[in-house]
Protein backbone atom coordinates (compact mmCIF):
# COMPACT_ATOMS: atom_id res chain seq x y z
CA UNK A 1 0.00 0.00 0.00
CA UNK A 2 1.07 3.60 -0.35
CA UNK A 3 -0.02 7.10 0.53
CA UNK A 4 -0.75 9.22 -2.51
CA UNK A 5 -1.75 12.35 -0.66
CA UNK A 6 -1.35 13.73 2.82
CA UNK A 7 -3.10 16.90 3.93
CA UNK A 8 -2.97 18.47 7.36
CA UNK A 9 -4.55 21.53 8.95
CA UNK A 10 -3.67 23.08 12.31
CA UNK A 11 -1.47 20.06 12.98
CA UNK A 12 1.69 20.80 15.03
CA UNK A 13 3.49 23.72 13.33
CA UNK A 14 1.36 23.68 10.15
CA UNK A 15 -1.64 25.99 9.63
CA UNK A 16 -2.24 23.98 6.43
CA UNK A 17 -0.14 21.79 4.14
CA UNK A 18 -0.70 19.36 1.30
CA UNK A 19 1.81 16.87 -0.07
CA UNK A 20 1.41 14.62 -3.10
CA UNK A 21 3.25 11.39 -2.53
CA UNK A 22 3.52 8.19 -4.50
CA UNK A 23 5.14 4.77 -4.67
CA UNK A 24 8.90 4.68 -4.23
CA UNK A 25 11.06 6.91 -2.09
CA UNK A 26 10.05 10.37 -0.91
CA UNK A 27 12.62 12.45 0.95
CA UNK A 28 11.71 15.37 3.20
CA UNK A 29 14.69 17.66 3.74
CA UNK A 30 14.83 20.51 6.21
CA UNK A 31 16.83 21.87 9.09
CA UNK A 32 15.90 20.95 12.64
CA UNK A 33 12.65 22.36 13.95
CA UNK A 34 11.17 23.05 10.51
CA UNK A 35 8.47 20.41 10.70
CA UNK A 36 9.67 17.33 8.77
CA UNK A 37 8.83 14.90 11.52
CA UNK A 38 5.39 16.47 12.00
CA UNK A 39 4.43 15.25 8.54
CA UNK A 40 5.43 11.64 9.12
CA UNK A 41 3.88 11.84 12.59
CA UNK A 42 0.57 12.68 10.90
CA UNK A 43 0.90 9.62 8.65
CA UNK A 44 1.68 7.48 11.70
CA UNK A 45 -1.36 8.87 13.51
CA UNK A 46 -3.66 7.76 10.70
CA UNK A 47 -2.22 4.24 10.98
CA UNK A 48 -2.18 3.84 14.78
CA UNK A 49 -4.45 6.63 16.11
CA UNK A 50 -1.59 7.71 18.34
CA UNK A 51 1.54 9.76 17.96
CA UNK A 52 4.93 8.09 18.21
CA UNK A 53 6.23 11.11 20.09
CA UNK A 54 3.62 12.08 22.68
CA UNK A 55 0.98 10.19 24.65
CA UNK A 56 -1.58 13.02 24.71
CA UNK A 57 -3.26 14.62 21.73
CA UNK A 58 -3.08 18.24 22.93
CA UNK A 59 0.45 18.94 21.58
CA UNK A 60 -0.70 17.81 18.11
CA UNK A 61 -3.01 20.77 17.68
CA UNK A 62 -1.23 23.91 16.45
CA UNK A 63 -0.73 26.45 19.20
CA UNK A 64 -3.26 29.23 18.66
CA UNK A 65 -5.52 27.07 16.49
CA UNK A 66 -9.22 26.80 17.17
CA UNK A 67 -9.33 23.56 19.13
CA UNK A 68 -8.81 20.78 16.61
CA UNK A 69 -6.34 19.44 14.06
CA UNK A 70 -7.25 17.68 10.83
CA UNK A 71 -5.41 14.96 8.91
CA UNK A 72 -6.49 13.71 5.48
CA UNK A 73 -4.76 10.74 3.94
CA UNK A 74 -5.42 9.05 0.60
CA UNK A 75 -4.32 5.42 0.72
CA UNK A 76 -3.85 3.15 -2.30
CA UNK A 77 -3.96 -0.59 -1.93
CA UNK A 78 -4.20 -3.05 -4.80
CA UNK A 79 -5.52 -0.36 -7.13
CA UNK A 80 -8.18 0.58 -4.59
CA UNK A 81 -8.26 4.09 -3.15
CA UNK A 82 -9.51 5.04 0.34
CA UNK A 83 -9.69 8.45 1.94
CA UNK A 84 -9.24 8.67 5.72
CA UNK A 85 -10.12 11.92 7.45
CA UNK A 86 -9.44 12.46 11.13
CA UNK A 87 -10.31 15.42 13.29
CA UNK A 88 -8.24 15.40 16.47
CA UNK A 89 -10.03 17.07 19.35
CA UNK A 90 -7.95 16.93 22.54
CA UNK A 91 -9.89 15.86 25.60
CA UNK A 92 -12.79 14.55 23.52
CA UNK A 93 -13.43 11.75 21.06
CA UNK A 94 -11.84 12.29 17.68
CA UNK A 95 -14.08 12.30 14.63
CA UNK A 96 -13.20 9.93 11.83
CA UNK A 97 -14.48 9.56 8.27
CA UNK A 98 -13.68 6.82 5.80
CA UNK A 99 -14.42 7.62 2.15
CA UNK A 100 -16.51 10.59 3.28
CA UNK A 101 -18.84 8.59 5.52
CA UNK A 102 -18.56 9.16 9.26
CA UNK A 103 -17.53 6.23 11.45
CA UNK A 104 -19.20 5.67 14.80
CA UNK A 105 -15.99 4.30 16.25
CA UNK A 106 -12.66 5.88 15.47
CA UNK A 107 -11.11 2.43 15.94
CA UNK A 108 -12.66 1.28 12.64
CA UNK A 109 -10.05 3.37 10.81
CA UNK A 110 -7.30 1.02 11.99
CA UNK A 111 -6.09 -1.23 9.20
CA UNK A 112 -6.78 1.18 6.33
CA UNK A 113 -3.24 2.54 6.45
CA UNK A 114 -0.45 0.56 8.01
CA UNK A 115 2.92 2.12 8.67
CA UNK A 116 6.18 0.98 10.18
CA UNK A 117 7.97 3.98 11.59
CA UNK A 118 11.54 4.12 12.75
CA UNK A 119 12.59 7.23 14.66
CA UNK A 120 15.46 8.23 16.98
CA UNK A 121 13.15 7.61 19.96
CA UNK A 122 13.25 3.90 19.08
CA UNK A 123 16.65 3.55 20.71
CA UNK A 124 14.55 3.17 23.87
CA UNK A 125 13.34 -0.20 22.48
CA UNK A 126 16.76 -1.55 23.40
CA UNK A 127 17.95 0.74 26.17
CA UNK A 128 14.66 1.79 27.76
CA UNK A 129 12.18 0.34 30.25
CA UNK A 130 10.27 -2.92 29.66
CA UNK A 131 7.20 -0.79 28.90
CA UNK A 132 8.79 0.31 25.60
CA UNK A 133 9.20 -3.28 24.45
CA UNK A 134 5.69 -4.25 25.57
CA UNK A 135 4.32 -1.34 23.59
CA UNK A 136 6.32 -2.39 20.54
CA UNK A 137 4.76 -5.86 20.66
CA UNK A 138 1.23 -4.60 21.34
CA UNK A 139 1.39 -1.94 18.60
CA UNK A 140 2.55 -4.58 16.14
CA UNK A 141 -0.27 -6.89 17.27
CA UNK A 142 -2.81 -4.18 16.49
CA UNK A 143 -1.17 -3.39 13.14
CA UNK A 144 -1.40 -7.09 12.29
CA UNK A 145 -4.97 -7.56 13.48
CA UNK A 146 -6.85 -4.42 14.59
CA UNK A 147 -9.13 -6.45 16.88
CA UNK A 148 -6.31 -6.60 19.44
CA UNK A 149 -6.84 -2.91 20.16
CA UNK A 150 -10.01 -3.89 22.05
CA UNK A 151 -8.33 -6.69 24.03
CA UNK A 152 -5.47 -4.40 24.93
CA UNK A 153 -7.84 -1.68 26.15
CA UNK A 154 -9.83 -4.24 28.18
CA UNK A 155 -6.68 -5.58 29.77
CA UNK A 156 -5.51 -2.09 30.76
CA UNK A 157 -8.87 -1.56 32.39
CA UNK A 158 -8.74 -4.86 34.31
CA UNK A 159 -5.30 -3.97 35.65
CA UNK A 160 -6.50 -0.52 36.73
CA UNK A 161 -9.66 -1.92 38.36
CA UNK A 162 -7.74 -4.65 40.14
CA UNK A 163 -5.03 -2.20 41.22
CA UNK A 164 -7.65 0.14 42.67
CA UNK A 165 -9.17 -2.79 44.55
CA UNK A 166 -5.81 -3.88 45.99
CA UNK A 167 -5.08 -0.34 47.12
CA UNK A 168 -8.47 0.04 48.78
CA UNK A 169 -8.16 -3.29 50.58
CA UNK A 170 -4.46 -2.96 51.49
CA UNK A 171 -5.28 -1.62 54.95
CA UNK A 172 -7.09 -4.86 55.83
CA UNK A 173 -3.88 -6.87 55.68
CA UNK A 174 -1.54 -4.40 57.27
CA UNK A 175 -0.63 -4.73 60.92
CA UNK A 176 -2.35 -1.91 62.82
CA UNK A 177 0.00 0.95 63.64
CA UNK A 178 -0.40 3.78 66.09
CA UNK A 179 -0.85 6.24 63.25
CA UNK A 180 -3.55 4.41 61.29
CA UNK A 181 -5.08 2.71 64.31
CA UNK A 182 -5.98 -0.46 62.38
CA UNK A 183 -8.17 -1.08 59.33
CA UNK A 184 -11.48 0.65 58.66
CA UNK A 185 -14.37 -1.80 58.81
CA UNK A 186 -18.08 -1.62 58.22
CA UNK A 187 -20.13 -1.35 61.44
CA UNK A 188 -20.51 -4.75 63.08
CA UNK A 189 -17.96 -6.36 60.79
CA UNK A 190 -15.00 -8.31 62.13
CA UNK A 191 -11.55 -8.19 60.55
CA UNK A 192 -11.98 -11.76 59.26
CA UNK A 193 -15.28 -10.88 57.61
CA UNK A 194 -13.77 -7.75 56.06
CA UNK A 195 -10.87 -9.76 54.66
CA UNK A 196 -13.16 -12.50 53.31
CA UNK A 197 -15.35 -9.92 51.58
CA UNK A 198 -12.35 -8.16 50.01
CA UNK A 199 -10.94 -11.50 48.86
CA UNK A 200 -14.25 -12.48 47.26
CA UNK A 201 -14.25 -9.33 45.13
CA UNK A 202 -10.57 -9.69 44.34
CA UNK A 203 -11.11 -13.26 43.11
CA UNK A 204 -13.52 -11.96 40.48
CA UNK A 205 -10.86 -9.66 39.10
CA UNK A 206 -8.25 -12.46 39.34
CA UNK A 207 -10.47 -14.36 36.90
CA UNK A 208 -10.71 -11.44 34.52
CA UNK A 209 -6.99 -10.77 34.74
CA UNK A 210 -6.33 -14.41 33.89
CA UNK A 211 -8.84 -14.61 31.02
CA UNK A 212 -8.01 -11.36 29.24
CA UNK A 213 -4.34 -11.50 30.26
CA UNK A 214 -4.00 -14.99 28.78
CA UNK A 215 -5.49 -13.81 25.49
CA UNK A 216 -2.95 -10.98 25.31
CA UNK A 217 -0.07 -13.18 26.44
CA UNK A 218 -0.94 -15.86 23.90
CA UNK A 219 -1.04 -13.27 21.11
CA UNK A 220 2.29 -11.75 22.16
CA UNK A 221 4.00 -15.14 22.34
CA UNK A 222 2.79 -16.10 18.89
CA UNK A 223 3.84 -12.72 17.53
CA UNK A 224 7.33 -13.00 18.98
CA UNK A 225 7.70 -16.53 17.63
CA UNK A 226 6.83 -15.26 14.14
CA UNK A 227 9.04 -12.19 14.49
CA UNK A 228 12.30 -13.81 15.60
CA UNK A 229 13.48 -15.15 12.21
CA UNK A 230 12.88 -11.74 10.61
CA UNK A 231 14.77 -10.03 13.43
CA UNK A 232 17.75 -12.29 13.05
CA UNK A 233 17.82 -11.74 9.31
CA UNK A 234 17.42 -7.95 9.51
CA UNK A 235 20.20 -7.61 12.07
CA UNK A 236 22.56 -9.75 10.04
CA UNK A 237 21.96 -7.61 6.95
CA UNK A 238 22.19 -4.21 8.69
CA UNK A 239 25.24 -4.96 10.81
CA UNK A 240 26.98 -7.09 8.16
CA UNK A 241 28.31 -9.32 10.93
CA UNK A 242 27.83 -12.90 11.98
CA UNK A 243 26.31 -11.84 15.33
CA UNK A 244 23.02 -13.54 16.05
CA UNK A 245 20.26 -11.21 17.29
CA UNK A 246 17.43 -12.78 19.23
CA UNK A 247 14.45 -11.87 21.39
CA UNK A 248 13.02 -13.93 24.24
CA UNK A 249 9.84 -13.35 26.21
CA UNK A 250 10.29 -12.82 29.95
CA UNK A 251 6.96 -13.47 31.62
CA UNK A 252 5.96 -12.57 35.16
CA UNK A 253 4.52 -16.08 35.68
CA UNK A 254 5.74 -17.83 38.81
CA UNK A 255 8.86 -19.75 37.75
CA UNK A 256 9.00 -23.52 37.96
CA UNK A 257 5.64 -24.54 36.50
CA UNK A 258 5.68 -26.39 33.15
CA UNK A 259 3.81 -23.53 31.46
CA UNK A 260 6.26 -20.90 32.72
CA UNK A 261 9.14 -23.12 31.57
CA UNK A 262 7.58 -23.48 28.13
CA UNK A 263 7.11 -19.71 27.83
CA UNK A 264 10.72 -19.13 28.88
CA UNK A 265 11.83 -21.64 26.23
CA UNK A 266 10.04 -19.72 23.49
CA UNK A 267 7.12 -22.11 23.10
CA UNK A 268 3.50 -21.02 22.87
CA UNK A 269 1.23 -22.90 25.31
CA UNK A 270 -2.54 -23.02 24.81
CA UNK A 271 -4.49 -19.98 25.95
CA UNK A 272 -6.33 -21.98 28.62
CA UNK A 273 -3.03 -23.22 30.04
CA UNK A 274 -1.76 -19.65 30.19
CA UNK A 275 -4.91 -18.51 31.99
CA UNK A 276 -4.46 -21.27 34.58
CA UNK A 277 -0.79 -20.34 34.97
CA UNK A 278 -1.65 -16.67 35.55
CA UNK A 279 -4.20 -17.66 38.21
CA UNK A 280 -1.61 -19.86 39.96
CA UNK A 281 0.98 -17.11 39.81
CA UNK A 282 -1.48 -14.58 41.23
CA UNK A 283 -2.08 -16.99 44.11
CA UNK A 284 1.67 -17.26 44.69
CA UNK A 285 2.14 -13.51 45.10
CA UNK A 286 -1.15 -12.96 46.96
CA UNK A 287 0.47 -11.80 50.21
CA UNK A 288 2.89 -9.46 48.46
CA UNK A 289 0.09 -7.96 46.37
CA UNK A 290 -2.03 -7.42 49.45
CA UNK A 291 0.79 -5.72 51.32
CA UNK A 292 1.93 -3.51 48.48
CA UNK A 293 -1.44 -2.83 46.88
CA UNK A 294 -0.10 -3.43 43.34
CA UNK A 295 -0.88 -5.95 40.56
CA UNK A 296 2.32 -8.00 40.35
CA UNK A 297 1.53 -10.68 37.76
CA UNK A 298 0.32 -10.47 34.18
CA UNK A 299 1.34 -9.26 30.74
CA UNK A 300 1.67 -5.69 32.09
CA UNK A 301 4.73 -6.83 34.09
CA UNK A 302 6.42 -8.76 31.28
CA UNK A 303 9.47 -7.90 29.21
CA UNK A 304 11.30 -8.94 26.07
CA UNK A 305 14.94 -9.83 26.50
CA UNK A 306 16.97 -8.75 23.47
CA UNK A 307 20.26 -10.50 22.97
CA UNK A 308 23.25 -10.20 20.65
CA UNK A 309 25.12 -13.49 20.51
CA UNK A 310 25.18 -14.82 24.07
CA UNK A 311 24.93 -11.43 25.81
CA UNK A 312 21.87 -9.34 26.63
CA UNK A 313 21.82 -6.19 24.49
CA UNK A 314 20.93 -3.94 27.41
CA UNK A 315 24.12 -3.06 29.23
CA UNK A 316 26.46 -4.97 26.90
CA UNK A 317 25.87 -3.72 23.35
CA UNK A 318 27.65 -0.63 21.98
CA UNK A 319 25.69 2.45 20.95
CA UNK A 320 25.95 1.50 17.27
CA UNK A 321 24.82 -2.06 17.96
CA UNK A 322 21.82 -0.76 19.93
CA UNK A 323 20.85 1.39 16.94
CA UNK A 324 21.14 -1.51 14.56
CA UNK A 325 19.11 -3.72 16.87
CA UNK A 326 16.32 -1.15 17.31
CA UNK A 327 16.23 -0.65 13.54
CA UNK A 328 16.18 -4.42 13.01
CA UNK A 329 13.16 -4.75 15.32
CA UNK A 330 11.23 -2.25 13.21
CA UNK A 331 12.35 -3.85 9.95
CA UNK A 332 11.35 -7.27 11.29
CA UNK A 333 7.91 -5.80 12.00
CA UNK A 334 7.82 -4.50 8.44
CA UNK A 335 8.65 -7.89 6.94
CA UNK A 336 6.16 -9.68 9.18
CA UNK A 337 3.37 -7.32 8.11
CA UNK A 338 4.41 -7.64 4.47
CA UNK A 339 4.17 -11.43 4.79
CA UNK A 340 0.81 -11.28 6.63
CA UNK A 341 -0.97 -8.66 4.58
CA UNK A 342 0.34 -9.52 1.16
CA UNK A 343 1.10 -5.84 0.69
CA UNK A 344 3.83 -3.55 2.02
CA UNK A 345 3.08 -1.22 4.90
CA UNK A 346 4.42 2.29 4.39
CA UNK A 347 7.95 2.45 5.78
CA UNK A 348 8.89 5.71 7.50
CA UNK A 349 12.53 6.44 8.38
CA UNK A 350 12.55 9.56 10.51
CA UNK A 351 16.02 11.11 10.92
CA UNK A 352 17.65 7.70 10.87
CA UNK A 353 20.54 8.04 8.46
CA UNK A 354 22.43 10.68 10.45
CA UNK A 355 22.90 8.14 13.25
CA UNK A 356 24.35 5.33 11.12
CA UNK A 357 27.87 4.89 9.74
CA UNK A 358 28.25 4.85 5.96
CA UNK A 359 28.31 1.04 5.68
CA UNK A 360 25.05 0.65 7.60
CA UNK A 361 23.49 3.53 5.62
CA UNK A 362 24.19 1.81 2.33
CA UNK A 363 22.93 -1.55 3.56
CA UNK A 364 19.75 0.06 4.89
CA UNK A 365 19.27 1.76 1.50
CA UNK A 366 19.61 -1.69 -0.14
CA UNK A 367 17.09 -3.16 2.25
CA UNK A 368 14.40 -0.57 1.63
CA UNK A 369 14.89 -0.37 -2.13
CA UNK A 370 12.15 -2.90 -2.89
CA UNK A 371 9.55 -1.45 -0.47
CA UNK A 372 6.43 -0.07 -2.09
CA UNK A 373 6.73 3.30 -0.37
CA UNK A 374 9.42 4.78 1.87
CA UNK A 375 9.19 8.19 3.51
CA UNK A 376 12.56 9.53 4.64
CA UNK A 377 13.28 12.65 6.66
CA UNK A 378 16.77 14.12 7.01
CA UNK A 379 18.33 17.43 8.02
CA UNK A 380 20.73 17.57 5.06
CA UNK A 381 20.87 15.72 1.75
CA UNK A 382 24.41 14.55 2.54
CA UNK A 383 23.04 12.21 5.23
CA UNK A 384 20.84 10.35 2.75
CA UNK A 385 22.52 7.61 0.69
CA UNK A 386 22.86 8.75 -2.91
CA UNK A 387 20.81 5.94 -4.38
CA UNK A 388 17.79 7.19 -2.41
CA UNK A 389 18.14 10.62 -4.02
CA UNK A 390 18.34 9.36 -7.60
CA UNK A 391 15.87 9.61 -10.48
CA UNK A 392 12.20 9.15 -9.74
CA UNK A 393 12.64 10.07 -6.10
CA UNK A 394 10.44 12.83 -4.75
CA UNK A 395 12.41 15.38 -2.77
CA UNK A 396 10.67 18.02 -0.69
CA UNK A 397 12.22 20.94 1.13
CA UNK A 398 10.56 21.76 4.42
CA UNK A 399 11.09 25.26 5.79
CA UNK A 400 9.13 26.69 8.69
CA UNK A 401 5.95 24.77 8.00
CA UNK A 402 5.93 25.13 4.21
CA UNK A 403 6.68 22.32 1.81
CA UNK A 404 8.11 22.75 -1.68
CA UNK A 405 8.91 20.05 -4.21
CA UNK A 406 12.49 20.10 -5.41
CA UNK A 407 12.52 17.44 -8.08
CA UNK A 408 10.18 16.60 -10.89
CA UNK A 409 8.54 13.24 -10.35
CA UNK A 410 5.08 14.57 -10.94
CA UNK A 411 4.89 15.88 -7.40
CA UNK A 412 3.46 19.22 -6.51
CA UNK A 413 3.08 20.77 -3.12
Amino acid sequence: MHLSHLGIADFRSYPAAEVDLGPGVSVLLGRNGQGKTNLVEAAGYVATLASHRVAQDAPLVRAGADGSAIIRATVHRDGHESLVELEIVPGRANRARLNRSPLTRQRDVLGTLRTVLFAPEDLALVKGDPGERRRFLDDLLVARQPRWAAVRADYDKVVRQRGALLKQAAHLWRAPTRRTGGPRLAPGESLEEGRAAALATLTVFDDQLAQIGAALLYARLRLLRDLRPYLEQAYRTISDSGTHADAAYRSSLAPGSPVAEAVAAGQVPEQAELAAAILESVEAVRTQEQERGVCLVGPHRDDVLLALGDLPAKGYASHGECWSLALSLRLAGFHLLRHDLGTDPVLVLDDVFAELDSGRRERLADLVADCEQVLVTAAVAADVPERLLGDGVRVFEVTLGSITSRSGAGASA
Partner: protein
Amino acid sequence: MYEGVVQDLIDELGRLPGVGPKGAQRMAFHLLAADPEDITRLAEALLQIREKVRFCEVCGNVAEAERCRICLDDRRDPSMICVVEQSQDVAAIERTREFRGRYHVLGGAINPIGGVGPEDLRVRELVARLADGEVAEVIIATDPNLEGEATATYLARLLAPYDGVRVSRLASGLPVGGDLEYADEVTLGRAFEGRRMISTGPTG
Protein backbone atom coordinates in the same frame (compact mmCIF):
# COMPACT_ATOMS: atom_id res chain seq x y z
CA MET B 1 -23.14 35.66 32.81
CA TYR B 2 -26.77 36.60 33.34
CA GLU B 3 -28.33 38.27 36.33
CA GLY B 4 -29.47 36.46 39.44
CA VAL B 5 -32.22 33.89 38.94
CA VAL B 6 -31.63 33.31 35.23
CA GLN B 7 -27.99 32.37 35.84
CA ASP B 8 -29.03 30.19 38.79
CA LEU B 9 -31.43 28.31 36.51
CA ILE B 10 -28.73 27.90 33.82
CA ASP B 11 -26.28 26.57 36.42
CA GLU B 12 -28.84 24.09 37.80
CA LEU B 13 -29.82 22.84 34.34
CA GLY B 14 -26.16 22.60 33.37
CA ARG B 15 -25.60 20.07 36.15
CA LEU B 16 -27.97 17.55 34.55
CA PRO B 17 -26.35 14.69 32.63
CA GLY B 18 -25.95 15.30 28.91
CA VAL B 19 -26.53 19.06 29.22
CA GLY B 20 -23.68 21.48 28.52
CA PRO B 21 -23.54 25.22 29.23
CA LYS B 22 -24.96 26.13 25.80
CA GLY B 23 -27.81 23.64 26.11
CA ALA B 24 -28.60 24.85 29.61
CA GLN B 25 -28.79 28.42 28.37
CA ARG B 26 -31.11 27.40 25.54
CA MET B 27 -33.43 25.54 27.91
CA ALA B 28 -33.48 28.44 30.37
CA PHE B 29 -34.53 30.93 27.71
CA HIS B 30 -37.09 28.48 26.33
CA LEU B 31 -38.60 28.27 29.82
CA LEU B 32 -38.63 32.06 30.13
CA ALA B 33 -40.79 32.26 27.01
CA ALA B 34 -43.02 29.28 27.86
CA ASP B 35 -46.62 29.32 29.10
CA PRO B 36 -46.88 29.81 32.86
CA GLU B 37 -49.00 26.63 32.98
CA ASP B 38 -46.25 24.56 31.41
CA ILE B 39 -43.74 25.90 33.92
CA THR B 40 -46.03 25.06 36.82
CA ARG B 41 -46.49 21.51 35.54
CA LEU B 42 -42.72 21.07 35.19
CA ALA B 43 -42.10 22.51 38.66
CA GLU B 44 -44.74 20.20 40.17
CA ALA B 45 -43.29 17.16 38.46
CA LEU B 46 -39.88 18.05 39.84
CA LEU B 47 -41.22 18.48 43.36
CA GLN B 48 -43.20 15.25 43.16
CA ILE B 49 -40.28 13.05 42.24
CA ARG B 50 -38.72 14.15 45.50
CA GLU B 51 -41.88 13.50 47.52
CA LYS B 52 -43.56 10.56 45.84
CA VAL B 53 -40.91 8.41 44.20
CA ARG B 54 -39.39 5.78 46.38
CA PHE B 55 -37.47 2.62 45.82
CA CYS B 56 -39.24 -0.72 46.10
CA GLU B 57 -38.27 -2.37 49.38
CA VAL B 58 -38.09 -5.77 47.69
CA CYS B 59 -36.40 -5.24 44.35
CA GLY B 60 -35.01 -1.70 44.50
CA ASN B 61 -36.85 -0.53 41.39
CA VAL B 62 -38.39 2.97 41.36
CA ALA B 63 -41.87 2.82 42.87
CA GLU B 64 -44.63 5.06 44.15
CA ALA B 65 -45.38 2.89 47.18
CA GLU B 66 -43.40 0.60 49.45
CA ARG B 67 -43.41 -1.99 46.71
CA CYS B 68 -43.23 -1.52 42.97
CA ARG B 69 -45.97 -2.56 40.60
CA ILE B 70 -44.09 -5.65 39.45
CA CYS B 71 -43.47 -6.97 42.96
CA LEU B 72 -47.16 -6.43 43.80
CA ASP B 73 -48.38 -8.24 40.68
CA ASP B 74 -49.51 -11.78 41.64
CA ARG B 75 -49.39 -12.97 38.06
CA ARG B 76 -45.59 -12.58 37.96
CA ASP B 77 -43.63 -15.79 38.43
CA PRO B 78 -41.92 -15.59 41.86
CA SER B 79 -39.53 -18.45 41.03
CA MET B 80 -37.49 -16.30 38.61
CA ILE B 81 -35.44 -13.22 39.47
CA CYS B 82 -33.74 -11.12 36.83
CA VAL B 83 -30.82 -9.13 38.25
CA VAL B 84 -30.11 -5.79 36.55
CA GLU B 85 -27.86 -2.81 37.27
CA GLN B 86 -30.44 -0.02 37.24
CA SER B 87 -34.16 0.76 36.96
CA GLN B 88 -33.84 1.74 33.29
CA ASP B 89 -32.80 -1.86 32.57
CA VAL B 90 -36.07 -3.10 34.09
CA ALA B 91 -37.99 -0.86 31.70
CA ALA B 92 -35.91 -2.16 28.76
CA ILE B 93 -36.61 -5.81 29.61
CA GLU B 94 -40.29 -5.07 30.30
CA ARG B 95 -40.64 -3.72 26.77
CA THR B 96 -39.75 -7.18 25.42
CA ARG B 97 -42.74 -8.76 27.29
CA GLU B 98 -40.65 -11.96 27.26
CA PHE B 99 -39.88 -12.13 30.93
CA ARG B 100 -42.70 -12.84 33.39
CA GLY B 101 -40.65 -13.19 36.59
CA ARG B 102 -39.53 -10.53 39.03
CA TYR B 103 -36.54 -8.22 39.14
CA HIS B 104 -33.73 -7.19 41.41
CA VAL B 105 -32.03 -3.82 40.85
CA LEU B 106 -28.44 -3.73 42.14
CA GLY B 107 -27.96 0.01 41.81
CA GLY B 108 -24.78 -0.23 39.74
CA ALA B 109 -21.90 -2.60 39.06
CA ILE B 110 -18.66 -3.46 40.84
CA ASN B 111 -16.20 -0.72 39.88
CA PRO B 112 -13.19 -0.37 42.20
CA ILE B 113 -11.89 2.72 40.37
CA GLY B 114 -15.22 4.43 41.03
CA GLY B 115 -15.14 3.16 44.62
CA VAL B 116 -18.12 0.81 44.14
CA GLY B 117 -17.76 -2.59 45.79
CA PRO B 118 -20.34 -5.38 46.34
CA GLU B 119 -21.23 -3.87 49.74
CA ASP B 120 -22.40 -0.70 47.94
CA LEU B 121 -24.80 -2.72 45.78
CA ARG B 122 -28.04 -4.39 46.84
CA VAL B 123 -26.36 -7.79 46.99
CA ARG B 124 -27.32 -8.63 50.57
CA GLU B 125 -30.98 -7.96 49.73
CA LEU B 126 -30.71 -10.36 46.78
CA VAL B 127 -29.32 -13.12 48.98
CA ALA B 128 -32.12 -12.50 51.50
CA ARG B 129 -34.71 -13.05 48.76
CA LEU B 130 -33.37 -16.57 48.17
CA ALA B 131 -33.91 -17.60 51.80
CA ASP B 132 -37.49 -18.92 51.49
CA GLY B 133 -36.53 -21.42 48.77
CA GLU B 134 -39.16 -20.19 46.32
CA VAL B 135 -36.65 -18.89 43.77
CA ALA B 136 -35.49 -21.50 41.26
CA GLU B 137 -33.54 -19.34 38.79
CA VAL B 138 -31.54 -16.14 38.97
CA ILE B 139 -30.91 -14.55 35.56
CA ILE B 140 -27.99 -12.14 35.63
CA ALA B 141 -28.56 -9.31 33.16
CA THR B 142 -25.75 -6.90 34.01
CA ASP B 143 -24.19 -4.88 31.18
CA PRO B 144 -21.86 -6.83 28.86
CA ASN B 145 -18.85 -4.68 29.73
CA LEU B 146 -15.91 -5.27 32.07
CA GLU B 147 -17.70 -4.06 35.22
CA GLY B 148 -20.92 -5.86 34.35
CA GLU B 149 -19.04 -9.11 33.70
CA ALA B 150 -17.16 -8.75 36.99
CA THR B 151 -20.45 -8.27 38.82
CA ALA B 152 -21.94 -11.29 37.07
CA THR B 153 -18.96 -13.47 38.03
CA TYR B 154 -19.16 -12.22 41.62
CA LEU B 155 -22.86 -13.08 41.88
CA ALA B 156 -22.39 -16.45 40.21
CA ARG B 157 -19.74 -17.41 42.78
CA LEU B 158 -21.81 -16.05 45.65
CA LEU B 159 -24.97 -17.91 44.63
CA ALA B 160 -23.30 -21.19 43.65
CA PRO B 161 -23.76 -22.81 47.12
CA TYR B 162 -27.54 -22.25 47.12
CA ASP B 163 -29.34 -25.54 46.54
CA GLY B 164 -32.07 -25.55 43.94
CA VAL B 165 -31.14 -22.13 42.54
CA ARG B 166 -29.95 -22.08 38.96
CA VAL B 167 -27.87 -19.07 37.89
CA SER B 168 -27.88 -18.00 34.25
CA ARG B 169 -26.41 -15.13 32.26
CA LEU B 170 -28.00 -13.37 29.28
CA ALA B 171 -26.52 -14.51 25.97
CA SER B 172 -24.23 -12.22 23.97
CA GLY B 173 -24.44 -12.24 20.24
CA LEU B 174 -25.59 -10.61 17.07
CA PRO B 175 -28.23 -7.90 16.97
CA VAL B 176 -31.45 -9.03 15.29
CA GLY B 177 -32.03 -7.47 11.88
CA GLY B 178 -28.37 -6.52 11.62
CA ASP B 179 -25.77 -7.40 9.04
CA LEU B 180 -23.06 -9.88 9.92
CA GLU B 181 -20.45 -7.80 8.11
CA TYR B 182 -21.04 -4.81 10.38
CA ALA B 183 -20.66 -6.71 13.65
CA ASP B 184 -17.51 -5.93 15.60
CA GLU B 185 -15.00 -8.71 16.24
CA VAL B 186 -15.73 -9.12 19.94
CA THR B 187 -19.47 -9.49 19.44
CA LEU B 188 -18.96 -11.87 16.54
CA GLY B 189 -16.46 -13.89 18.61
CA ARG B 190 -18.97 -14.18 21.45
CA ALA B 191 -21.68 -15.18 19.01
CA PHE B 192 -19.45 -18.02 17.82
CA GLU B 193 -18.80 -19.13 21.39
CA GLY B 194 -22.50 -19.13 22.20
CA ARG B 195 -23.66 -20.75 18.95
CA ARG B 196 -26.64 -23.11 19.01
CA MET B 197 -27.00 -26.49 17.33
CA ILE B 198 -29.93 -26.54 14.93
CA SER B 199 -29.26 -30.01 13.59
CA THR B 200 -27.10 -32.74 15.05
CA GLY B 201 -27.17 -35.00 12.02
CA PRO B 202 -28.63 -38.53 11.87
CA THR B 203 -27.82 -40.41 15.06
CA GLY B 204 -26.44 -43.91 15.26
